[in-house]
């Protein structure tokens, strides 16, 4: 474990990911001039990712990442995960370094794992939010408590598509986290071949109270 928990596999993964797709951050659509790209919760990302990711890369079922390992890296649902693998202290956290593995995912021989894919590759200063852990010791103890993570797979009726339980902010690209070998097993979808995720899945944020419709009073 110690041996593989390093960044040595970075180069190997870079090559693996190059095999998967072309330019990651280049926009796919030719938008109308003067119209911002980031509307509809940056929904363009889903369509771009869908077009750029080959089907085999969306259908992998490695299953090593689980919700438990996922939350172990986080302080609360939605917090940026810490970096679980070793990185050289000289490492600057530049986009190219991280994105070579986390842009498109792929197998990392040194870690014997598939790299998770970031849903927001356009944010280039990775270390702004994601930091490594150099010591397990705390400075002082802390009485931090988190809320429970959102319950997943909570469809409104048997077999209906579950709503999106989390906010879409920084998590706009469904395909990044929910398909392929790098995806957390419990939230990986089996139908990556569908391209318009929000055709069936709409946000119903777990931490927001459910509203009941009532007619406006006259």
């Amino acid at each position, binding site marked *: 474990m110690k041996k593989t928990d390093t960044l040595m596999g970075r180069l190997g993964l870079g090559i693996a990911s190059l095999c998967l797709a072309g330019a990651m951050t280049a926009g796919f*659509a030719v938008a*109308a001039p003067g119209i911002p790209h980031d509307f509809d919760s940056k929904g363009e990302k889903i369509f771009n990712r869908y077009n750029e990711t080959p089907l085999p890369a969306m259908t992998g079922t490695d299953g090593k990442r689980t919700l438990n390992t996922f939350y172990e890296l*986080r302080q609360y649902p939605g917090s940026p995960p810490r970096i679980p693998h070793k990185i050289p202290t000289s490492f600057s956290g530049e986009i190219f370094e991280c994105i070579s593995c986390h842009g498109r995912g792929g197998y990392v021989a040194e870690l014997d794992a598939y790299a998770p894919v970031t849903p927001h590759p356009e944010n280039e200063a990775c270390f702004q939010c994601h930091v490594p852990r150099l010591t397990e010791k705390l400075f002082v103890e802390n009485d*931090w408590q988190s809320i429970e993570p959102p319950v997943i797979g909570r469809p409104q*009726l048997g077999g209906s598509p579950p709503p999106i339980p989390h906010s879409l902010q920084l998590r706009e690209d469904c395909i990044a986290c929910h398909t392929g070998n790098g995806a957390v097993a*419990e939230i990986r979808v089996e139908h990556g071949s569908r391209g318009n995720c929000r055709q069936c899945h709409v946000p119903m944020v777990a931490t927001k109270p459910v*509203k009941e*419709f009532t007619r406006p009073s006259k």
Partner: protein
Amino acid sequence: MTVKLDRRSFIKSAAATSAVATAASLFPGISFADWKKQTGSNGMITWKKAPCRFCGTGCGVLVGVSGDRAVAVKGDPKCSVNKGLCCVKGYHSVQALYGKDRLTRAQVRKNGKMVEVPVSEALDLIAAKMKETIKKHGKDSVAIYGSGQWTIPDGYVASKLFKGCIGTNNVEANARLCMASAVTGFLTSFGLDEPMGCYEDIENANVFVTWGNNMAEMHPVLFSRMLAARKRKKDVILIDFATRTTRTSQAADKSILFRPQTDLAVANAICHEIIRNNWVNWDFVNKHVSFHKGKTNIGYGLEDHFAFKDKAENMTFEEYKEFLREYTPEKVEKISGVPAKDIRYLASLYGDPKKKVTSFWCMGMNQHTRGTWINNLVYNIHLLVGKISTPGNSPFSLTGQPSACGTVREVGTLTHKLPHGVVMKEEARKMAAEIWDVPVSNIDPKPTYHTVEMFRALDRGDIRFMWIQVTNPMVTMPKLKRYRNGALKEDRFIVVSDVYPTPTTDVADVILPAAMWVEQEGMFGNSERRTQHFEQIVPPPGEAMSDTWQIIEVARRLGFEKQFPWGKDEYIGKIWEEYRRFHASPKHNMAPYEVLKKRSGVQWPFVNGRETRWRYNAKYDPAVSNGEEFHFYGKKDNRAWIWARPYEPAAESPDQEYNFWLNTGRVIEHWHTGSMTRRVPILHNAVPSSYVEINPEDAAELGVVNGEMVKIISRRGEIVMPASINGRGVPPRGMVFVPFFDEKYLINEVTLDAFCPISKQPDYKKCAVRLEKA
């Protein structure tokens, strides 16, 4: 430190609901604890087929039934429309049956207040009121206003009662507001209504052009088919040609914006370029196309009693080419804002003989004061290059309601129509009289009012009694205030059949509780000529009954037992077989009842046991009889018609005082006025309220940030609602967009009731407003 839930406590908390302990240990975090469980259920589900309740795509769904309740939905894998996939509305559609405020008892207005009465008493009152009104004010003072959500039997018995028995042509349906321009477009170009192609065009095309059509939200299942085809085939591109940037633009390879109304000019410019570059398919054009022009400066229908009749004149190709001289890409760039190079690019896609091109459109082209013209103009493009009636080459007009085609267009529930032909034609009247078993003199040869004029007649007092079924005009009529005030006038009697209270039931004198969707047997007809039968799958609540049966009950009370003789356990099948007689020809033959019951939808013309997928094409269409590859048999000259239709401006455009365009429409989560989808928890929570989309730069100038209130003011009225900036869609500068589903924000109080003079369909996409920070 980490999220304070280790693996064990995680599993423990999930496993608390013991029934799912196994699932929970496999998938920690899954919980079904929030579900309200059905009492007395044995846990078994039976699956029954139905078409989806919502849009005109006509997805096949399987409704899961446990006991007498619908409990689940899945896509019907046997249905070729959606092949097992639905959208978020379809998957949750059965929840719309169970809103808490469901109407289950009849109500009658007594001393100004609605009181519950037995349904038979309400039906007696309706019949008595109709008799009294006809006696006092004549037969043309009673009217029925139905819907593209009417089942085919609903519309059929409405037409039979009003046109055949009572003898008034006061039969209209809300499809006038959504599909009338598509109909007149088809009739003027081809002589027969409804698309020549089918959804299989999607797997065959190389180029898709969406004309003012946000398919990603409005026809999401077809859109997914398109995306999947593009991904699989690699040589497919999607061009979004629209007035506003949407989810569809985001998925498109290229998004081209045009100024509202100027699609007319761009379509002509595309034809100009096709001819200039000699991309015309001469073999096709010489054999199958003729050239025509009609009247120009045709008005906007803003005044009461507006009348217009087009007059077709033949023209030569040279004259048509001369007409197009005004539409060079450079000139049209000035009108439309579309760069000349983009116009040339579009023309090159249509003109490339190696590419198969499908054009999709819906409300953008239909809700247009030149709706008929723009439909004609897009057909012109396809006809010039001969890209029509073959797999993948398809000008495809989509519908918005589940049976706008099936009920309104095919049954003909419009003032001038009969199930076969128009009231003006003696042959058509004779045929209807014979099948309906009424004297031919009953059927009035003169059409009365189209929808807007019908509500004007109600306001004026020419109509005194109106029965409204399966629709919500007090949200959807343009220039709403006039028509609501009209409905509320003294001595007007309004009957509303619906499933939930709405702004329309608010103006009713009688409310009839209706069976919804699979609480009754019926048929819908979708966008690709597919008739879809559904049986009664669950019982309707309380005293709710099908709209068909309500009409039958009233018809019998009016003395028409002979025309409405059927029993409650057989009436749908009997009605279908009677109706089918109207269409008995290879051009329109409908499948027999028994076939419909078995299959997940059947396309017409259904001839000798076979569906017709591409009309007018000898390979697929048994009605082709000229020995050629194509036969456009709808027109007397056996040709498809190319029309010279000019660009004319909108009825109202932004000016100094009212300096913004107002555009209205929908979102994926809500269907039309939201009376059903807002009662589905997941859909309401995803989009709980309407909003006004403003371009970020306009918002900055106005000093408004996301969510702040904005006042939208037009010459008709004003409304205050929250701003949405970079939300679901982004309008260009100088335009705002408002979804119309929310009865709290009645945007139609602001819109204009201008319509296409040929189709009489109003334009909900264009009027002038100004904005204030509220």
